[in-house]
């Protein structure tokens, strides 16, 4: 039946029929890598457009709607412009590190994208330490920021990179702890297991009160970790320069810029997977059509992305000491307390299961 058609299995079988096993394996891996690169590029481009349209909607104006139908080709045009720009570089910058820094952020974003369960079968890398892998990856991303600021040989870029680095590592703690609170319910770090557990009801419903608290903390900490407003003091235009990517232009700047949007997508995707049941439909209404799961996943993720954009265009910025105070004095204690609360709830058997 068409509805039970499994795309990945079909392609896998076809490839193995066509060539010897070794070559087919390699070709399969290359194919998956290309697909993910495409997802990265396309998602990045369209998220930028979405941000501009959403911002325009909040600000009572139209966004870009001329280039292509409703502005769909706008970011394509911007990308072409960025590619054709001159790659400037300062003379005294450390050449090797200066060129290396953008690749750190891109590689970590791609690695994180590969573990998400877009659907039952569309999951490239179902490692058994899924959540742990994700938090480890985001820690590597900090290196790219610090390298970028340091190697630019620019006083303000360095200050910006330092502030950004401190912000990211502080808020990673809250992200990790709030995810840990949910792992208590699923008893497994593997992402496909987490989704399987949610067949009895999404985790945010199963864990009711502590899960909602964990979700709120996760959204706040996730926004802060990706340096988005209201935590974007690093890139604040009305303050000093443009933060750690002041000295980058052209394609390298585009890498940092796209990586920021993909990071936002990743945080939203983690939130969808852990709290809202990845590709599962509410009450199982389309369970019989498995490939619709992709659209459920994307829909829920885009809703969370919209929420993050809503934050950006509404709230003023926090000053850097207020930012750090928020994390270490407020979010961390609440997180720890919430962990104990969730553990208590599970022990007493008070979670909601359908």
């Amino acid at each position, binding site marked *: 039946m068409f509805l039970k058609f499994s795309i990945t299995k079909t392609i896998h079988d076809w490839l193995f029929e066509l060539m010897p096993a070794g070559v087919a394996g390699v070709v399969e891996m290359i194919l998956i890598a290309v697909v993910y690169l495409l997802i990265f590029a396309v998602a990045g481009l369209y998220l930028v457009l979405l941000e501009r349209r959403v*911002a325009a909607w*909040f*600000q*009572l*104006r139209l966004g870009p709607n001329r280039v292509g139908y409703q502005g769909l080709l706008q970011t394509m045009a911007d990308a072409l412009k960025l590619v054709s720009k001159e790659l400037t570089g300062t003379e005294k910058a450390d050449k090797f590190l200066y060129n290396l820094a953008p690749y750190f952020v891109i590689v970590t974003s791609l690695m994180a994208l590969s573990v998400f369960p877009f659907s039952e079968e569309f999951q490239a890398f179902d490692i058994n330490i899924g959540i742990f892998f994700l938090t480890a990856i985001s820690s590597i991303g900090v290196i790219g920021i610090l390298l970028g600021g340091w190697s630019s040989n620019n*006083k303000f870029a360095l200050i910006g990179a330092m502030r950004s680095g401190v912000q990211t590592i502080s808020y990673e703690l809250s992200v990790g702890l709030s995810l840990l609170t949910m792992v208590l319910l699923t008893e497994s770090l593997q992402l496909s297991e987490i989704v399987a557990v949610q067949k009895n009801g999404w985790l945010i419903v199963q864990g009711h009160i502590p899960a909602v608290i964990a979700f709120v903390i996760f959204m706040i900490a996730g926004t802060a970790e990706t340096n988005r*407003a*209201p935590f*974007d*003091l690093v890139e*604040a*235009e*009305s*303050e*000093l320069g443009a933060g750690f990517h002041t000295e980058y232009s052209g394609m390298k700047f585009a890498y940092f810029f796209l990586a920021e949007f993909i990071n936002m997508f990743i945080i939203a995707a983690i939130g969808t997977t852990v709290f809202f049941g990845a590709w599962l439909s509410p009450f199982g209404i389309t369970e019989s059509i498995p490939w619709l799961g992709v659209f459920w996943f994307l829909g829920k993720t885009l809703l969370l992305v919209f929420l993050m954009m809503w934050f*950006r*265009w*509404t*709230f*003023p*910025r*926090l*000053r*850097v*000491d*207020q930012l750090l105070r928020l994390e270490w004095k407020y979010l961390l204690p609440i997180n720890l307390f919430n962990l104990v609360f969730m553990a208590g709830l599970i022990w007493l058997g008070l979670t909601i299961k359908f």
Partner: protein
Amino acid sequence: MEKTLLYEELKSQEYFINMGPQHPATHGVLRLLLTVDGEIIKKVEPDLGYIHRSIEKMCERDSYQQIVHLTDRMDYLSSHINNEAVCLTVENALQLDIPDRVKVIRTIIGELTRIASHCLWWGVIGMDLGALSTYFYGFRDREMINDIFEETCGARLTMNYNIPGGLMFDIHPNFVKRTKEFIAHFRNKLPEYDRLLTGNIIFQNRMKGVGILSREDAISFGASGPVGRGSGYSCDVRKHHPYSAYDKISFKEALQTEGDSFARYRVRIDEMWESMNIIEQLIDNIPEGDYKVATNAVIKLPKGEFYQKVETARGELGVYIISTGTKNPYRMKFRSPGFSNLSLLNHIAVGGKIGDLVASMATLDLVIPDIDR
């Protein structure tokens, strides 16, 4: 011996940051030389003169009608009130009897200008602090006022509607109706803006306790307008030295006592409410009569000195004319509110962080052409 050397090496070094003439947070071409130690500001030195157009020297060779046209380029956000100041000085010197109609219309348009200026200020303060959407909301309401001005006075920003002797032409028949519509619309919008920024905890944390100015310092530095009133110094020229139709209406002076940025912010929001009350008291009863009094084509002020104070959206503007009986003033001095407000920037910013400097400057509401003249 070795211990002292180590301590010397560990001392942190101050460095200079230039918030240069082109900077989104300085509202005009102002250069600030900051001496910063880490994140703490040690000294702020403003560097002025980027938009100095020698208005005072030009006034010495222009006729009085021409001088009115120079003044609205000074503080272009309260241009009508600047024009009114010069016209009042000239009319008091010539001892002209201005009809009530002129006085009431000047007051109404002055209050509309004040609301427009505060709308822009509100939009910009949100933008400076990071809430980028407020800029558009502030400008949307300002557009309605600009449309009213365009219909009646002929221009949106630099109106030149006041001339020595009265108004240039009579008000448009739609003026009263459109003003009433605007007031009804804005009365609904201002509580929304209050909820968006004023009640927001992030905004309050950025503004409370930042840039504190005591009452004695405010008086000593010559602060006027909302900057002075935020520190508890009652300095409203409309109350203490009333002009035009201000002695016939009743309104409250917006005063707060804490002296920090949040207090100055609240004062301006309260001023917008009071302006709407003033307009409502006057808009229905504009007296009939002439819209101007005839003056000579060449105005010559009698020998002597004349000073007039008005309250612009920034503070107290003073116009000082020394005349020797000829058709040009001998010396014309404009005491601009931004000049004194800027001088206290060093006092309130030292010891704070750079983010606090941005918040304090936004609440001082400086317009640099007003300072540079």
